[in-house]
């Protein structure tokens, strides 16, 4: 028993080291390596037709903002269609959409009511059925798209290998409190370093479900999104990848979002992400390992990306086991300390928002005093670990027990 547990602990340590190494490689690439350019410098008058989808559920606080921003896009009016998807709203969302649709024929809302699957994937499927263009872009309702973003995202699809594109998300409400400030740091590391490095190294940049887009015909070719998947963005990324399509990342194509301002909202969001992402891991890991359409490096990165939300539960399990072994006298104190050392080391160098990666991103973004907040990410790590662990266990129960997850919207805070 003791041997098996010790082997388990060593395996955890090895996994932690692999993830730490991955983050080192990505950060060093961002600092020293060749940075792959995106196509935003291209000026092309033959722009493709674009349909923008905006999933909405009780968005009366933000609906006006996102629609106004989309109508102000620097894009030929006859080639831009906007489909807000009102998914069973019970507030004034429908009235707001109706008032816009009357004044702007380019806005063609869908009002989803009655029976049938709810949630973002189901809404997207319904909109794809009526969308008039091949290039589909998606913005969540709390986003504030700048005037050039549709043009710059659409350019990605000049490349016939690109199945999806992802822009950069920047929190707008950083002054709202401690949580938003830490999320700002996390986002910066995740996009400025992690996504850009994966794009530059021809690995697996991820489509994030908003500030991005995909090819309509490709998604429809496999029957649209699975309405019972919580992370339709990760699911799309891997479906594309194993079929030979690639995700382009546009680091300079930026859009403001509203980051969660309460710990409860963030906890729920993260738990849902972890659940959906882990659900996707169970679906795709075999295909990622065997796909002939991926390079070996993409297979490795794809597997590491799929497994990333399993790391906090692994660490917590390892810590619990080591304590149990120590208390029962099975292993000496030194071994327990060894694991603790690796856990702390992983926290510092290997979790998905490691300090040095965020620090590098902060320097690239021209941050100053906010870099002093980096040590506070330690608290975020503890918080994230718990939320992610619960989300991963949710996914395990979903898969083993055949439970169907339900979609839950992140709370909005804009006044």
């Amino acid at each position, binding site marked *: 028993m003791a041997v098996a547990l010790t082997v388990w602990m060593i395996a955890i340590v090895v996994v932690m080291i692999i993830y730490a190494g991955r983050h080192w490689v990505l950060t060093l690439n961002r600092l020293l390596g060749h940075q792959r350019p995106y196509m935003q410098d291209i000026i092309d008058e033959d722009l493709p037709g674009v349909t923008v989808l905006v999933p909405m559920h009780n968005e009366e606080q933000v609906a006006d903002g996102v629609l106004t921003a989309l109508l102000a896009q620097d894009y030929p009016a006859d080639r831009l269609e906007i489909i807000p998807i009102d998914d069973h709203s019970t507030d004034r969302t429908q009235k707001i959409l109706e008032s816009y649709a009357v004044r702007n024929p380019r806005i063609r809302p869908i009002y989803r009511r009655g029976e049938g699957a709810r949630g973002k994937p189901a809404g997207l499927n319904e909109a794809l059925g009526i969308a008039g263009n091949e290039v589909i872009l998606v913005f969540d309702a709390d986003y504030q798209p700048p005037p050039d973003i549709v043009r710059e995202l659409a350019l990605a699809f000049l490349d016939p290998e690109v199945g999806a594109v992802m822009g950069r998300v920047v929190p707008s409400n950083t002054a709202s409190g401690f949580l938003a400030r830490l999320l700002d740091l996390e986002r910066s590391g995740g996009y400025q370093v992690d996504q850009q490095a994966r794009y530059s190294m021809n690995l697996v940049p991820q489509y994030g479900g908003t500030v991005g887009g995909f090819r309509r015909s490709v998604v429809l070719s496999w029957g649209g999104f699975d309405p019972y998947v919580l992370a339709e963005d990760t699911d799309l990324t891997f479906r594309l990848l194993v079929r030979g399509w690639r995700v382009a990342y546009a680091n300079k194509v930026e859009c403001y979002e509203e980051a969660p301002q309460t710990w409860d909202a963030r906890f729920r969001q993260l738990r849902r992400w972890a659940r959906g992402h882990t659900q996707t891991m169970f679906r795709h890991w075999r295909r990622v390992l065997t796909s002939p359409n991926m390079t070996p490096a993409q297979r490795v990165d794809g597997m590491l990306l799929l497994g990333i939300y399993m790391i906090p539960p692994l660490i917590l399990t390892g810590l619990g086991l080591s304590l149990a072994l120590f208390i029962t006298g099975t292993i000496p104190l030194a071994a327990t300390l060894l694991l603790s050392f690796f856990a702390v080391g992983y926290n510092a160098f290997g979790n998905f928002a490691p300090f040095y990666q965020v620090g590098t991103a902060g320097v690239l973004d021209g941050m100053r005093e906010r870099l*002093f907040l980096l040590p506070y990410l330690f608290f975020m790590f503890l918080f994230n670990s718990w939320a992610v662990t619960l989300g991963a266990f949710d996914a395990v129960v979903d898969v083993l027990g055949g439970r169907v997850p339900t979609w839950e919207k992140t709370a909005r805070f804009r006044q």
Partner: protein
Amino acid sequence: MKVAILVGLGALLLALPFLPGLRELRQPKDAEPIRIDESFTRDPRFFGNSLREKLAPFLEGLPELPARLAIELRRPETLAVYADLRVPEGAHEDALVVALGVAVLERGARLDETWIRGDADVGPGAHVRALACDGQATLREGARILRWIDVEGHLLAEAGSDLGLSASAAGAVRLSPGCAFRRIWGRPVFVRGEAVRPAPDERLTIEDEVVWGRTRLSLPPGFHLEKDVVALTEVRIGRGAVLSGTIKAHGPIVLGEGVRVRGHLISRKRIEIGSGARIFGNVFAEGDVDIGSGAHVGRKGGTKTVYSGGRVRIGPGAAVLGWLIAERGGHVE
């Protein structure tokens, strides 16, 4: 006592990393969101139009010309306004300059930021830091733009001239052998001279006869020349081929003489466009781009872009209808 001191020191060490952040949390100095420039529009003629907008208000109700005015922009500046302007050989004017008529810079003359309302003739070896010209501009042999040039009419660049970091024209940009550039906008951008006709290549191999993939040249079902091509390695297209789709390659793309591509060329390495080839879409390469003699990129009435993350070499008689970007510099053969 010892234990208390040790515990205290330990607590202090643990708290130490958090102390600098406490000040930022209590009195935030860097809490604004990362700036996204929402007013940004991709305008290749931005520099010229911006200078014209800034200087235009100072040209109303001018005293007798020539005049020198003290003006306030981001800092105090001197503005020299002339009717017509001739800068003698080797002379240097260190004010902002506006010429309401034509301007001639003689050999080796130097100007800083300049707005010429008529035609501009920048003489051999003359230097201009930035030039907005409302007429036609000519850069004589060895003339040099240090930052940018923007022209309402045509821009004619003679042999060995340097077009600086950004050159733009509402009309055509005509380049000559030996010109250097970084970004050029023109309709079209073309190189003076007769296209060179290469000697027939008798060394035909199977690659010249059939579609040939050494490793994974992946063609979609029902492939014919109207489909896009995506290749994980190099793509070579033999002379005279016609493709209606886009070519994307992770290796180099090499187009033979007279190839016609209706879509785009996208490569993670370099792109070589053979002499006399016609590309109707954009050209985007992370490496160098070589535009052969007499090759054309773009089509009339539709703006297209050639982007190179490396260097661009453009041969005689070649033309780009739109924007030409060479991140590491361009050169005219």
